[in-house]
C-alpha cells in the first residue's frame, strides 16, 4: 500500500478541474494507454496572457490523477513564462511529496504542460520531437534529452532513480547501459563545473588497485553489456592507458565512451586528475 500524503489523497478523491475546455488555447498530451498512464492538459488565457482556465483528463493511478489535478491549480493565474518554470519537483512539493516510485507522475505533468505551451506557440510536432532527442527507452518511449533534463533537475545518480522518475528502463531493461551513460555524462559535466574537495592522497599501489577495482566493478559490466570490453595496459602517474576490445574497438563512439564514461567513472572513484588514453591494438 502506497504511503500517499493527505494532499495527494485529497487531490485523488476530489480532483480539481477535470474535463475539457471548448476552444482551448493550448493542448498537451503525454503518455499512452500502453504505458499505463496518460495525461491530456489544456488551458485558456485571459486578455493579459494569464492562464484563466486549465482542465485535465488522466488515465492512470492515484498519484497520476492527483499530480494532474495539482498542476491545474498551480498554473491558473500564471503567465506562460511563469508556468514554464514549474518543475516536476514543484508539483511533488505542492502535493506534500510523492513516493519515489511515483515521481514519474509529476514528470508526466510537467511534460504535458510543456507540450501544451508548445502547442499554443505553434511549435510543430516535428520541432518538438527534435528537441526531445532520440528515444532511448523503447518500452516507454523516453528520449535522451528528456532523461538528461530530469537527471539534472532532480540530481539523479542511479538507473533505478531515473526509472522512478521517467519510467525509462522499467520494461525490458535493455537500455540500462545507455541510461548509465546519460547519468555519467551529466555527472562528468557537473564535476568540471563544481570544485570538489581535495581528494585524499593515494599511494601508487592503492591507486593501481583502485583503478583495477573501478574497471572491474563499474566499467566492464557496462561495456560488456554492449558486447565490448576494456583492458588496462599501463598506468603512468595520472595517465591511465587502456585498450578497447570486442565491439568497443570498432565502435564509432568509442572516443565518447572513453572520455565521457570511463574517464568520468575513474575521476569519480579514484582521482580527479585521471586522464584516459587509448592504445590501438
Amino acid at each position, binding site marked *: 500500500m502506497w504511503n500517499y500524503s493527505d494532499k495527494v489523497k485529497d487531490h*485523488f478523491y476530489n480532483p480539481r478541474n477535470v474535463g475539457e475546455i471548448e476552444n482551448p488555447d493550448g493542448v498537451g498530451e503525454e503518455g499512452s*494507454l500502453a504505458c499505463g498512464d496518460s495525461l491530456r492538459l489544456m488551458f485558456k488565457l485571459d486578455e493579459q496572457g494569464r492562464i484563466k482556465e486549465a482542465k485535465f483528463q488522466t*488515465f492512470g*493511478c492515484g498519484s497520476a*490523477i492527483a499530480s494532474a489535478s495539482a498542476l491545474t491549480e498551480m498554473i491558473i493565474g500564471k503567465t506562460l513564462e511563469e508556468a514554464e518554470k514549474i518543475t516536476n519537483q514543484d508539483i511533488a512539493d505542492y502535493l506534500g511529496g510523492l513516493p519515489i516510485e511515483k515521481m514519474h507522475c509529476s514528470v508526466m505533468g510537467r511534460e504535458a504542460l510543456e507540450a501544451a505551451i508548445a502547442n499554443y506557440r505553434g511549435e510543430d510536432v516535428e520541432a518538438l520531437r527534435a528537441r526531445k532527442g532520440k528515444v532511448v527507452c523503447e518500452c516507454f518511449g523516453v528520449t535522451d534529452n528528456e532523461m538528461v533534463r530530469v537527471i539534472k533537475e532532480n540530481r539523479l545518480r542511479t538507473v533505478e532513480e531515473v526509472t522512478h522518475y521517467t519510467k525509462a528502463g522499467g520494461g525490458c531493461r535493455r537500455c540500462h547501459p545507455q541510461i548509465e551513460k546519460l547519468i555519467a555524462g551529466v555527472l562528468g559535466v557537473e564535476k568540471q563545473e563544481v570544485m570538489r574537495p581535495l581528494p585524499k592522497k593515494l599511494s601508487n599501489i592503492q591507486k593501481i588497485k583502485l583503478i583495477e577495482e573501478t574497471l572491474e566493478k563499474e566499467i566492464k559490466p557496462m561495456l560488456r553489456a554492449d558486447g565490448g570490453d576494456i583492458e588496462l595496459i599501463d598506468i603512468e602517474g595520472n595517465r591511465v592507458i587502456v585498450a578497447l576490445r570486442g565491439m568497443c574497438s570498432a565502435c564509432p563512439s568509442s572516443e565518447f565512451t572513453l572520455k565521457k564514461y570511463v574517464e568520468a567513472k575513474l575521476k569519480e572513484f579514484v582521482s580527479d586528475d585521471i586522464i584516459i588514453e587509448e592504445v590501438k591494438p
Partner: protein
Amino acid sequence: MTQRTVYADNNATTQVAPEVVEAMMPFFTKHYGNPSSMHFMAIEPEKAVKQAREQVAQLINADPSEIVFTSCGTESDNAAIRGILAALPDKRHIITTRVEHPAVRNLCQYLGKNGYRVTELSVDKLGHIDLDELRETLDDDTAIVSIMWANNETGVIFPIAELAELVKSRGALFHCDAVQAAGKLPIDVKKVPVDLISISGHKLHAPKGIGVLYIRKGTYFVPLLMGGHQEQGRRGGTENVPYIVGLGKAAELARTYVREEQHRVRMLRDRLENELLEKALDASVNGDRVNRLPNTTSISFKYIEGEAILLLLSAEGIAASSGSACTSGSLEPSHVLRAMGVPFTRVHGSVRFSLSRYNTEEDVSYIVEKMVPIVRRLREISPFGREELYAAK
C-alpha cells in the same frame, strides 16, 4: 456508523478461521515443548504434529509419511525444484509456464542463468497451455516439470492429471504448485500422478508462516534445509508446532468446505461477475470462465487504471487486488495477463476479486453497488473511450 468491510482478496491471504486460532492457542501457552525431547513435555506436541500430518494427508488423500511441513508456499516450491535437481545432477532441463507464481518463475529464471536449460510454456488467450508444446519440449534431459494447479490471478485451472501423466510417461518428475487450489478444489494424489505438491497455510484459513510439501513415496529428494532429523530428514528445523496444529485444523475444515466452495462460493462469484459485466462500463473477464477456481474473477475495465480503482474501493471498505503495473511497484503490468495477450486497453484496468466461504450475498451486492459508480467516475476523468462513455449515458 462503522463502515462496512468486505474482504475480497482471498487469493492474497485469508482470514484465519476462529477454530484454527483456538486449536493453536494451547501450543503457545501450555504445550510448548519440543516434540523431539525425551521428557513429558514432548508428548502433547508430538501427538499434535502427528495428528496434523494425518489431517493434511487426508485433504489430498496422501499417506501421512508423504507430508513435509515447511515455512510457506515459496519454501515448498524452492525445496521441490531444487531438491529434485540436486537429486538428479545429470539432468539439466526444467519446464515451467509463463504464468507461474514468482516463487516458481523467478527461481526457474535464476536457474536458467546458472547452468540449466529452462523452457517456459506459453498460454493462449484463455490462459491454457498447449499439450503438444509440452510433449515436444520434454526430452531425456528434462529433470522436472513445474506447473501450477490453478492460477492465482485468473483462477484458470490446468488439466493437472493429463499433464502429469504425459510428464511421467516421458520419465520426468512433476511438481505442482497447488497453493491456490488446495481448499478450493478436491485434490487426490491417488488419482493424479504428481510427484510433489506445494501448499500454503494462509490461503486456506490457517496463519501465514506455514506450508506443506507433499513428496510422493519413492521420490529421490535432497533437502533444501539441512539440519536435524525432523520431517524424516527432509526438512531440518524444530517443528513449528502451533502453526502445524493450525494448518492441520484448517485442512480438516477445508475437507468439509471444499464442497461449499464449489457451490455457494461459486454462486456468489458468478453473481458478482455477471452483475459487473452487465452494469459496469466496458467490463470483460480474463481467462477461461469454465475451468476456473470457484472463488476467483479477474475482470478488466477498459480505459481506467487498476490502482485508482483499488484506492476508491478501499475507501469504501472493499479489499481487492489488481494486475496493473502501478499496484506492483514495478512498471510492468501482470505477467499472467500479458502472457495471455490481454490488450493494453484492458490489462492496466484489471481487478481481481477472490471470495471465500466467509463472504455473503450482501457482500456481493455491496461490491456491485460501489464498483459501478467507481468505474463511471474514473471513465469521466479518463481521456480515452469518450465516445463509448457518451453513448452509454
